[in-house]
């Protein structure tokens, strides 16, 4: 099924490509540059590029005693120091004003801005990923969608996109919708309108 394909498929392709080109393994090892630690977790790289002085990953824990933060970036763990007085924390509930990092749950996606000196990273800013909220002006009601659909895509001037997996779409979809399952978004950008100002309406199986 196309919708369950993921980075694993790509990883396999890459791995086999490397095997083919590797040549004598020993000499390769000597010349290969050391692998840089990732700065953006895979899950974040869907939307974010690496940037200097910034890490993106899953918050793992905090120790206020030693003023250090632990963050997981895929399989690696980064430990950063911080200065409690200077550290800024954003998008965190105001329940622990003294030690705001305690309000970040383990696993929460965070961005950490840092400075680096003598190979040691000091966090200056921790931003928790905000909840997915849609601005009210971007929401359409059932009545509004009914009106669009009654006019049809040409007269109504819209593209209606069903973001559910293909098997669900096949079982029945809103008239005039096309199917771009969310996991396949990047592979199917050619289905989007050429005109960047065209009205695009997304829906799926409800409040997800």
């Amino acid at each position: 099924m196309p919708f369950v394909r993921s980075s694993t498929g790509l990883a396999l392709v890459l791995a086999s490509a490397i095997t083919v080109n590797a040549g004598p393994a020993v000499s390769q090892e000597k010349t290969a540059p050391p692998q840089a630690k990732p700065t953006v977790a895979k899950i974040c790289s869907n939307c974010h590029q690496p940037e200097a002085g910034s890490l993106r990953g899953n918050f793992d824990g905090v120790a206020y005693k030693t003023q250090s933060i632990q963050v997981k970036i895929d399989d690696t763990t980064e430990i950063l120091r911080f200065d409690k007085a200077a550290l800024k924390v954003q998008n965190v509930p105001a329940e622990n004003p003294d030690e705001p990092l305690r309000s970040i749950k383990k696993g929460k996606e965070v961005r950490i801005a840092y400075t680096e000196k003598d190979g040691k990273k000091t966090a200056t800013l921790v931003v928790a990923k905000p909840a997915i909220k849609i601005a009210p002006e971007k929401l359409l009601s059932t009545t509004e969608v009914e009106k669009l659909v009654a006019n049809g895509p040409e007269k109504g001037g819209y593209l209606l996109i069903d973001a559910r997996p293909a098997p669900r779409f096949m079982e029945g979809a809103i008239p005039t919708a096309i199917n771009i399952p969310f996991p396949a978004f990047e592979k199917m950008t050619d289905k989007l309108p050429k005109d960047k100002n065209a009205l695009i309406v997304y829906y799926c199986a409800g409040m997800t």
Partner: protein
Amino acid sequence: MSPNSAGRAEKLGYTNVKVYHEGLPEWTKRNCTVLSSQFLKDAYIDKDIPHVLLDVRDAASARKGFIKGAVTMPAASIAANIAAFPPKDKKPPIIVYDQNGGDNAKNAAKTLVASGYTSVTVVTGGMDAWQAAKFPVETGNLATAIVYVPKPRPGEIAIEDFRKIALVTPADTLILDVRNRDEANAGMIKGATLVPDEEILDRLADVPKNRRIITHCSTGVRAEMAYHKLKEKGYNVAFLNAKVDIDKDGNFKLEKP
């Protein structure tokens, strides 16, 4: 999934992206959906997914050529025969076709939606499209009685079985919550482990192989996606096909989707 998609489209520079957040569950309360004859064949008939298939043309036209498994019920007679349909709370998928996917089928679908059926689907292009695709056509007498025997989807756990496991989870079982973190932060089933569906394949180490895994989300859709991913990786896995509401104390409500 729709807010995420909308976010990505905006990143690509689209300036007029909207989200119909209530989505299909609200749409189907007031409207029918559509599917192509190809999808009728692939998603229901070939997969043997239980459904009610209605031929709403007049009986004489239907006898000349119909889709296997169809029940004859001319559109105008549906309202009078509504008692012959499976109970609404079983949410049977009802698929309606006429000659060409026109008003006949649409009116039949409207009657069914107005009667409280929430999974009513019209075959686009009707019998004409089915025949144009060269799919098999039956002739002669059609069935007149609706038979609908619900059957779980592959990998689906009964809602009542899930409820028992969620209240007292056996040691050899793990409930895997595959919603996103924001949803989970608002409340999780006690003892469940959170691995959002989109992260599963990168985090298989967090999903124990020696336990039975039962996935759930808020609608059943992502739970089923996660089920397929784990099944393919050799897990003993099932999924909950239900609407799930969980409060901050872990109390939960389950409802057939």
